[in-house]
């Protein structure tokens, strides 16, 4: 964190404002992604989805939902641990949003180009789980407790393959800085030649990290209502669950886009005239669409099945991936 502050202070005020803008844009971005999800889901289900709010194809639907959440009564049960309960939305939001500090939108459009950016991103993305666990405990509800414990168990299962898949990328690029990793993929993204297996592993683990189908057991509404957030209402629900989920989803997609698709780097040298942020948004958007597509197609697994999948399939595969990456690197040098 000290390095982060140092970097921020070292930059000019204008740049600071721009970079703050990235964080400030996160909330509107969740509204946009939420709207896209509603529409994509609807059309995949042969429906139209929201069509009224905002007149044109319901573009303001998520905005209206948000405003409605603000007006709702904030209910807390008598047995709730009120302090912890109220802190949860901050923790989940913060954990999700902090990833964006190191994600490069263009070569210089990054809040802090940390040398250990990848390490930092993976570390802060796990903070949200603390919030979910706290919510499960503070709600004084059995379903919430089960949801919180499921989230914690899930963390242990997916975190290893996620880190291992990212480690292979770091080996490939020879750096932990996300800008360097993106630069290393100039014109050939890792997903296509060096790390296709790592890409798939990372995607699976990232889906589990953001608790989306088929790994949405912590919030499985058919089983445990909404898991840890069963007792949440109004603003706390909107921020603690929805906003945090969408920010985390955008964050993980942005991270995966940077690690495996080259982030802001154009796909072809001939297309260099297209600015970096546009490339970044296209790639992140594609991954977000993939996550949405998967969510509305698949049923969910069971918690113990996720554990088996993570420990028996993903982790061995990612170890093999690291081994192969290392061997190739070695062969290349000698």
């Amino acid at each position, binding site marked *: 964190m000290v390095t982060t502050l140092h970097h921020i202070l070292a930059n000019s005020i204008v740049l600071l404002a721009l970079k703050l803008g990235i964080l400030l844009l996160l909330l509107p971005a969740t509204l946009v992604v939420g709207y896209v999800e509603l529409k994509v889901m609807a059309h995949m*289900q*042969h429906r139209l989805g929201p069509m009224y709010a905002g007149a044109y194809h319901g573009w303001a639907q998520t905005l209206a939902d948000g405003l409605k959440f603000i007006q709702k009564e904030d209910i807390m049960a008598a047995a709730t641990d009120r302090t912890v309960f109220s802190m949860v939305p901050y923790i989940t939001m913060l954990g999700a949003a902090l990833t964006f500090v190191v994600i490069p939108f263009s070569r210089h459009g990054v809040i802090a180009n940390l040398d250990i950016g990848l390490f930092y991103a993976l570390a802060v993305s796990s903070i949200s789980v603390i919030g979910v666990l706290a919510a499960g405990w503070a709600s004084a509800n059995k379903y919430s407790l089960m949801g919180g414990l499921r989230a914690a168990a899930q963390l242990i299962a997916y975190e290893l393959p996620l880190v291992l898949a990212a480690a292979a990328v770091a080996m490939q690029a020879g750096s932990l800085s996300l800008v360097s990793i993106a630069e290393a993929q100039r014109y050939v993204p890792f997903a296509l030649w060096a790390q296709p297996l790592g890409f798939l592993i990372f995607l699976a683990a990232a889906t589990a990290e953001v608790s989306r189908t088929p790994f949405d057991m912590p919030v499985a509404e058919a089983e445990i209502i909404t898991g840890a957030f069963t007792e949440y209402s109004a603003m706390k629900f909107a921020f603690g669950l929805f906003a945090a989920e969408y920010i985390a989803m955008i964050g993980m997609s942005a991270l995966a886009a940077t690690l495996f698709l080259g982030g802001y780097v154009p796909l072809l040298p001939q297309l260099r005239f297209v600015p970096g942020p546009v490339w970044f948004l296209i790639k992140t958007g594609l991954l977000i669409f993939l996550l949405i*597509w998967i969510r509305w197609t*698949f049923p969910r697994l069971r918690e113990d099945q996720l554990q088996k999948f993570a420990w028996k399939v993903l982790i061995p595969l990612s170890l093999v991936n690291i081994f192969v990456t290392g061997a190739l690197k070695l062969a290349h040098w000698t």
Partner: protein
Amino acid sequence: MNDESKLKKATFGTGLLKGLGITMRHMVSKAVTVQYPDEIAPLPPRSRGVIALKEENCTMCMLCARECPDWCIYIEGHKERRESRGEGKRAKAFNVLDRFAIDYALCMYCGICVEVCPYDALFWSPEFEYAEGDITRLTHEMERLEDWMRTVLPPSPLDDGAKGPEIKSAAPVVPAPAAAPAAAAPAPVETAPGPPPAAGRPAGMSEAEFVEQRAAAGRLVRQKVYEEEIAKGSEPRIAEARSKAAEMRARKATLPETEPAPPVTPAPAPSRPAAGMSAADAAAVRRKVYEEEIAKGSDPRIAEARSKAAELRARKGTKGPGG
């Protein structure tokens, strides 16, 4: 073995890809949603949306209220004596309907009342948009129930293989609106035979027997008119509607009498000529309302029903719905 065991076999991810293909295929094809308040999918005539009351057909026989499984129909009324009309006729008592209400908060929409009504006073309408915030407003009083008559649709023609005995269908009494508006003029009346032989209730005959006998006579009239219409080359539906109208007129013409009527007095064309306008004027009213409705963008069937209701009101000389 069977395709079940085939399905159960391990497929290593191809099933996941197939599923993704299915959702993608649907995403790029056109959605099937009907945007409800903007577009309304047409409902069939038999749809049990709301029950409409044709007040002038109601004789307060209380059959509907008695048969209702939920007891949600409230009927109140009193007897009135009408002064004798003409020489040698007695003053007679008849029922005046004061209140006819259906509590839709209780109603279970079974339609038994519509089915049992012997005088075609109750009809099903597909209209369903009458939700209320206040439960007491779900009790529809007579005016509101009569107003629903505007939305009653003509009965759908039966399947070609249907050869069964006729039972009461939820049809307005006037001819089907498939005919031109002018066809509403009561053409078949001239060809209708005289009223049935036993018009009044002879002494020693029970009320039930009397009703039964009159109904039988009405059916005779109906059959006759139907055959005449078919012979004229009318469409079966039109013939159906006209014969039904003839039957109703025949039955009603004999209804208020307590003594046998003189043998041949064809029922007057408009059932209550006293207050209303002539048939031609009424037909003009109908055309006008129809054109207005179409201009408003109403569904042709709705326009048809509303214009018909307007014509009937004009002929009866009553005020519009709610008026």
